[in-house]
């Protein structure tokens, strides 16, 4: 393809064509914002209409049928780098669209919203997608009186926000005081002897108050985990791993992030240690611990943690 042509073919102002009665009717209706098809002798509705039935070659009837404006995508291609002669200057789809009530499909551009040049096909772009024309305000009786098609509205986003002032409460407040000093605290239940971290001031199993404070280690064992693919501001990257970690000395696993290891290498029984932020950044918040990282110790056999899973 020449980058700077030295020879150009052009009809200045465009080539003039007569359209005849069938195409002319379609384009006239289009100018009025209506999508019309013509019925064949066999009863099928052709959109865009032709003077003849493509299946038989017979002349079509003079019965006109309003179709659409909604339609269904029959097949599509995705243009990640539009060309100058294309109807949109950002990535878009070409689609064959069968308007409701029609038996054939119309080729047009399908605008799938704003995508950067080179973008992959958007996930919602599928055969079967329901679409509608976007009409130009000023129409002249031309196939491009429809600027493009757009997907039907199937979703909205509703702004949602409510503000609160929450306190940690007595037991969690004490736990966070410990965290602010680099200590992980729990309570021992006077009935079942379990060490509950973080403590709640009560044993959920026995229904009794707890008061005996116990400090546990910042090392522990992964009892189960999940790989997350939705970004989270607390996680270093996607995918990230959230895991239940049974801290050494505790009897209740605690939910935390695991990092410093590829997500597909995390395993049940893996030994980990808290990665603390620098001390000067500490406050009464779990954010003091960025996440847990693997340590060089053998995995704990499942047998020894199965009761904590």
């Amino acid at each position: 393809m020449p980058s700077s042509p030295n020879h150009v073919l052009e009809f200045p102002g465009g080539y003039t064509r007569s359209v005849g009665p069938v195409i002319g009717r379609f384009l006239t209706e289009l100018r009025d914002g209506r999508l019309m098809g013509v019925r064949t002798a066999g009863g099928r509705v052709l959109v865009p209409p032709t003077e003849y039935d493509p299946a038989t070659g017979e002349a079509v009837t003079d019965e006109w049928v309003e179709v659409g404006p909604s339609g269904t995508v029959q097949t599509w291609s995705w243009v990640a780098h539009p060309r100058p002669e294309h109807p949109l200057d950002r990535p878009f789809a070409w689609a064959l669209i069968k308007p409701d009530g029609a038996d054939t499909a119309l080729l047009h551009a399908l605008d799938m919203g704003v995508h950067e040049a080179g973008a992959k096909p958007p996930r919602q772009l599928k055969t079967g997608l329901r679409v509608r024309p976007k009409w130009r305000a000023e129409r002249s009786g031309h196939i491009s009186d429809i600027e493009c098609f757009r997907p039907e509205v199937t979703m909205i986003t509703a702004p949602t926000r409510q503000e609160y002032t929450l306190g940690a409460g007595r037991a969690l407040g004490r736990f966070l005081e410990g965290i602010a000093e680099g200590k992980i605290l729990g309570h021992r239940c006077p009935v079942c002897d379990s060490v509950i971290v973080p403590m709640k001031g009560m044993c959920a199993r026995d229904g009794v108050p707890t008061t005996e404070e116990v400090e546990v280690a910042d090392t522990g064992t992964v009892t189960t985990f999940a790989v997350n693919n939705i970004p989270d501001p607390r996680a270093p990257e996607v995918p990230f791993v959230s895991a239940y970690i049974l801290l050494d000395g505790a009897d209740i696993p605690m939910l935390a992030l695991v990092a410093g290891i590829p997500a597909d290498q995390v395993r049940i029984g893996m030994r980990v240690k808290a990665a603390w932020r620098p001390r000067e950044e500490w406050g009464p918040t779990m954010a003091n611990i960025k996440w847990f990282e693997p340590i060089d110790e053998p995995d704990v056999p499942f047998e020894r943690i199965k009761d904590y899973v």
Partner: protein
Amino acid sequence: MSRDIAVVAFVQTKHTAEDAGLTEPELLAPVIAEIKERTGIDRFGFTCSGSCDYLEGKPFAFVSALDPVGAWPPISESHVEMDAAWALYEAYVRLLHDDIDTALVYGFGKSSQTDVRKVMTFQLDPYYLAPLGPDQVSLAALQARAYLERAGAKEDDLRAVAARSRAAGRENPYALHLEDPDPSAGYEVAPLRPYDVAPITDGAAAIVLAAGDKARELCERPAWITGIDHRADPHSPGARDLSRSESARIAGERAGAAGVEVAELHAQFSHEELILREALKLGEDVLVNPSGGALSANPVMAAGLIRIGEAAARIHDGSAGKVLGHASSGPCLQQNLVCVMEGEPRG
């Protein structure tokens, strides 16, 4: 009307991916000279060519291509603004008239001088399609999607076609020698990747047809045309099932495609080969595009004729007994021509 007509000679250029600095007549001249030399014929009963003036951007550009043929005193000559496979069809029909024995057919195209993807937009319906500016690859990609979804095929199946075609092309001294497809390549127009699209190619080709004893005289093992047919689907891509090629199916049945050993298919996109194999009912035992096909060299307006020539060459060299050459034209395989050739005439 019946007369035994055969492909007796086939010549093509070493095709190039870039402009080799030759005009169309200059590209064609050695091909015409070689086929005249090989057949020992200087004047043919009929001459017919296929080319596209839009590639050169000049009206009646094909007329200057007669210079290397030599047209004085006036010769009986015709031209189609299509792939030269359709020129071969016209020459075949002309030979059926029984008053001449030989015909020269040639096609040529330089894709390097303009944007072929856009040239192909000029062939579209000027009311509903062309004004939207859909280019050739965008339309082909619509067909690829329709085929993949209907047949349950995967994009990897497309890449396999490209890989096999390119490997075969590297063995063909006339084709472009293209690397194995890069699986990490992005989309050209999704679902097609760059290797699924035939390369921009300049080139030319010529065939000589001869009838009856003249064919036997000119060629030790003529490729007898035992069936030739071409059919068209509706032009509007929305008025037919894009996932299939009904026109290729009918042309194949009428030309007698059953039982061919080798098929040269004019598939300009990977998925077109899969659609055509299905339409022509080519089983796994049929050798498809041993030349590398259009995915390895696609000199427009000659590439379909080359398919017939490559298939005929398999008869000429004795490596096959029944072969098929296919050509297509129009958007999304709209029009298909099937030429079946055998080592023995119909009898």
